[in-house]
């Protein structure tokens, strides 16, 4: 299996805080890779750098064989790299259906076509059915529960047919039924060929779903391997329990 994404000595400081400190790892194509680590270990910052929301101070990001360091997030998205946010970010003033349509990552020429065309509707309705959002398709996203918003954000980034999806704490603040739903969707999409990189605190979720697991502490990778080995690794225990 080849690497779909690789991070090479990436660093980022925020006024003296080394949020990411020379971090390197790779995500192999076809995997569901977990990225775990204590709060503040730089997981979200790393996501922001990979997806172009933040510029790294140093290091390189390679996606699908191309150096994408410092690329515009929109361009990365259109080239197949999607992500969700720790605090789900959907557009509250748009309907659920429109939230999907707006995320399709279109070119200029489509700007002057219908707001929600027949084609859009067809594409979106498959996802709406799959994510059981069809009954609320015409509600504004503002009217959804937090869990539904997370689901919607996930569904929306699939509109662009991504090859790699980064999920930042997909189960945080979500009830157990919704967690199972989320897990099922990730598994199905992974079987359909999408690679995942998931930041998650819920270890049972990680154990069930992810392989391999990468552990981050203080902005650098301290472990990478099978989930079963994670909890027995001394370095990892150190990081979590505070040496």
């Amino acid at each position: 299996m080849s690497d779909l994404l690789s991070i090479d000595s990436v660093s980022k400081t925020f006024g003296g805080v080394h949020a990411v400190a020379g971090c390197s790892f790779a995500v192999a194509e076809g995997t569901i890779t977990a990225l775990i680590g204590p709060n503040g270990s730089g997981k979200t910052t790393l996501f922001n750098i990979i997806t172009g929301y933040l510029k790294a101070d140093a290091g390189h990001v390679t996606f699908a064989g191309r150096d994408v360091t410092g690329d515009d997030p929109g361009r990365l998205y259109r080239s197949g790299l999607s992500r969700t946010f720790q605090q789900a970010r959907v557009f509250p003033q748009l309907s659920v259906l429109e939230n999907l349509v707006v995320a399709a990552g279109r070119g200029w020429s489509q700007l002057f076509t219908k707001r929600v065309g027949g084609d859009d509707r067809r594409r979106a309705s498959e996802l709406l059915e799959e994510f059981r959002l069809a009954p609320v398709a015409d509600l504004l996203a503002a009217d959804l529960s937090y869990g539904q918003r997370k689901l919607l954000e996930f569904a929306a980034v699939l509109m662009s047919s991504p090859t790699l999806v980064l999920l930042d704490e997909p189960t945080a603040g979500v009830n157990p039924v919704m967690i199972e739903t989320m897990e099922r969707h990730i598994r199905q999409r992974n079987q359909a060929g999408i690679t995942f990189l998931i930041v998650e605190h819920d270890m049972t979720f990680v154990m069930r779903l992810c392989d391999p697991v990468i552990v981050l502490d203080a902005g650098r990778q301290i472990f990478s391997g099978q989930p079963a080995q994670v909890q027995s690794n001394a370095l990892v225990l150190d990081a979590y329990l505070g040496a």
Partner: protein
Amino acid sequence: MSRGSLVRGGLFVLVLATLPSFGLQHWFLNLMVFVLMFATMSSAWNLVGGFAGYPSLGHAAFFGIGAYSMALIFHGHVLSNGYEPFLLLPLIGLISAAVGFPIALIAMRTRADVFAIVTITFLFMVQTLAFNLRGWTGGSQGLSLPVAPFPAVSFEEPFYYTLVLLLCFTLLVTFGALRSKVGLSLVAVRADEDKARGIGVRVTGVKVLAFCVSVGITAMVGGVWAYYETFIYPQFAIDPLITIAVVLMTFLGGRATLWGPVLGAFVLEAGQQTLAYRLGGSQFYLIAYALVFLVIMLLLPRGVLPTLGDRLRQRRRARSVDSTSGGVTPMAAGAAEPPVALRRGASA
């Protein structure tokens, strides 16, 4: 939504188009000319300030640019055909939109309050230029235009109809934006611009486009105004109060709605002119004007139309939730901790 809008729009235009045939008095048509100017400018401002969420305070600069363009083209001419200046309006609109393009590219790198400050700075820059480029603008002496050769009995009508056309054009542009992916993208920009950029929305493109169209229309209104006034001065042609009136009207009627700015302009401009007339030369009308605005905004904080729309939506939503319970279970936001959470310092 579309059928209703078309019917409403058709009726609105029909009423406006037939109004002058009722033999109305000059003061009334004069009032309507100003109401239409502000309705058009508010609708145009709404594209940027409402839909894109960029509260421009510099629009009066483009009103002035339109006014001075018109004045500079026709200063010292004798008009044989009174409609000639109207025919040049599209050109004035295009030139002003072109002037707006670099301004938008620069100013729209900032957001919200900073954007408001950058644009109002531009306004004062343009006003200073108008005062000081005496060779062109005549400075504070003002600049004259030829008096329109229209018969006195129906002098206002050509201006009135031109403004009706401009307002229709602006409403059609807004309607078109709303029904296309331009509108969809603009709403996304307003809600969360970084996220929108991250999902491939053509953020810079749509917001700059909205700005250029908006200031182009505003400049055309400025052109009509200059021709109507026949004499323009920097302090009136480039007047921050024009921007403020337009912003208030849009907020009052409802930002990011098709009809909100029109409603706001009809209420505020008609109200203001009537109050000014009733209360005579004193400035008391300004206080009454402010009071009307305050009362409405206190009762309907998001503007008239959005607040009413919200109420309707809530009623509809209550119904649809009843009928879909069992589909997706709604749940409390920010639910419990994950079952097995690993956190620094957590006791294992």
